């Protein structure tokens, strides 16, 4: 349908799941490392608490990746039966069996280790969780780096690595950032200690997009086709950069100042701007990753833009509902 194949949807799921598992491992490790380095006990506790909460999106990402890999294995069997697929799609499918086994082993051992660590004594749990996140990041980074296999380590293969692995630092980190915002929202302690790190997190997102630009430079000329998809993707990247400056710059600083001043939330137009800007960020990254997973979409530029706008409205409505629920919850807490 619309030039899309089911296996491409699974590839999107795998990319999304791994990006999220990788990003949560990265930030879980960072916060646990910091918790062992700071002298302030309250700050260390905030870091540990946030790192523990990151296990939720970590396992969410792992579950999505697992389901997608199982789907991909059946798609690989179909492709071997002679269904016509374009070369790069064959390369992508050819990589599936080689990375599937390591992923299944990783999933099983990570789950066993996680359960064992939950039963471990509290005193050494922080160090054990830290090691867990570091090991998970290393494995996920390896697995996500091979979305396709050309048969040799040439420029194209390096492009695949950069073009895929950057999702940990971009898509995955953007979702993690939003998750951190949500879990910190109702706790002034978490806000105070987690919000100041948002600028460092946005640095990683900028670097992630830079990795993608550099990887495209490796195949520039060979890989670029002037299709509606190309123009749409470049438009979204342009929007994303402009939005990133506004969100990470003035809005981010305003958010930080609000927390430092002891106020509960951003006020007026700043709150609206933050909601719109945050939604544009998530909309853009999910759209880019989703559209990139499909090679032969038959949409025109206008249709792509319409889909993008529609997805933005859906996410914005979700964000609005969540905000209203948070407000009510907050009012309930004040009443107690």
């Amino acid at each position, binding site marked *: 349908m619309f030039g899309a194949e089911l296996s491409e949807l699974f590839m999107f799921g795998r990319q999304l799941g791994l990006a999220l598992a990788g990003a949560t491992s990265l930030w879980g490790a960072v916060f646990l490392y910091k918790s062992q380095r700071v002298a302030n006990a309250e700050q260390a506790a905030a870091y540990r608490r946030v790192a523990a909460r990151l296990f939720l999106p970590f396992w969410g990402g792992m579950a999505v990746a697992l389901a997608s890999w199982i789907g991909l294995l059946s798609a690989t069997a179909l492709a071997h039966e002679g269904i016509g697929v374009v070369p790069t799609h064959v390369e992508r499918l050819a990589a599936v069996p080689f990375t599937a086994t390591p992923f299944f082993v990783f999933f099983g051992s990570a789950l066993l280790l996680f359960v064992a660590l939950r039963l471990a004594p509290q005193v050494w749990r922080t160090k054990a969780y830290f090691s867990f996140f570091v090991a998970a990041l290393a494995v996920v980074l390896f697995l996500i780096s091979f979305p396709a296999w050309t048969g040799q380590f040439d420029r194209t293969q390096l492009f695949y690595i950069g073009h895929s692995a950057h999702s940990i630092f971009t898509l995955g980190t953007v979702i993690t950032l939003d998750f951190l915002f949500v879990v910190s929202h109702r706790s002034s302690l978490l806000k105070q200690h987690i919000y100041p790190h948002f600028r460092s997190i946005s640095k990683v997102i*900028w670097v992630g997009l830079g990795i993608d630009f550099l990887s495209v430079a490796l195949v520039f000329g060979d890989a670029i086709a002037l299709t509606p998809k190309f123009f749409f993707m470049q*438009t979204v990247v*342009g929007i994303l*950069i402009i939005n990133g400056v506004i969100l990470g710059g003035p809005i981010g600083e305003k958010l930080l100042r609000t927390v430092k001043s002891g106020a509960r939330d951003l006020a007026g137009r700043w709150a609206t701007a933050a909601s719109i800007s945050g939604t544009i960020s998530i909309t853009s990254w999910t759209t880019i990753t989703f559209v990139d997973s499909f090679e032969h979409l038959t949409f025109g530029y206008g249709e792509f833009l319409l889909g993008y706008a529609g997805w933005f409205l859906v996410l914005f409505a979700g964000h609005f509902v969540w905000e209203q629920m948070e407000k009510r919850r907050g009012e309930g807490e004040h009443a107690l």
Partner: protein
Amino acid sequence: MMKGRSFFTELRLSEYILLSAGIVLLASLPFVLVYGDFTVWVVAKGLYLFGVLLFLLNR
């Protein structure tokens, strides 16, 4: 006027460069579409990488 940084008046140098990169990237698309000329597009990407470098250096 709000105290502190407003939307566009007090951006850092790196943020100005990144903002310019985004605008130049969007502006480059008609050139690519009509003439197949990637020069402005490549400039936008270069500008972006330079902006990120400055951002990492906290400029």
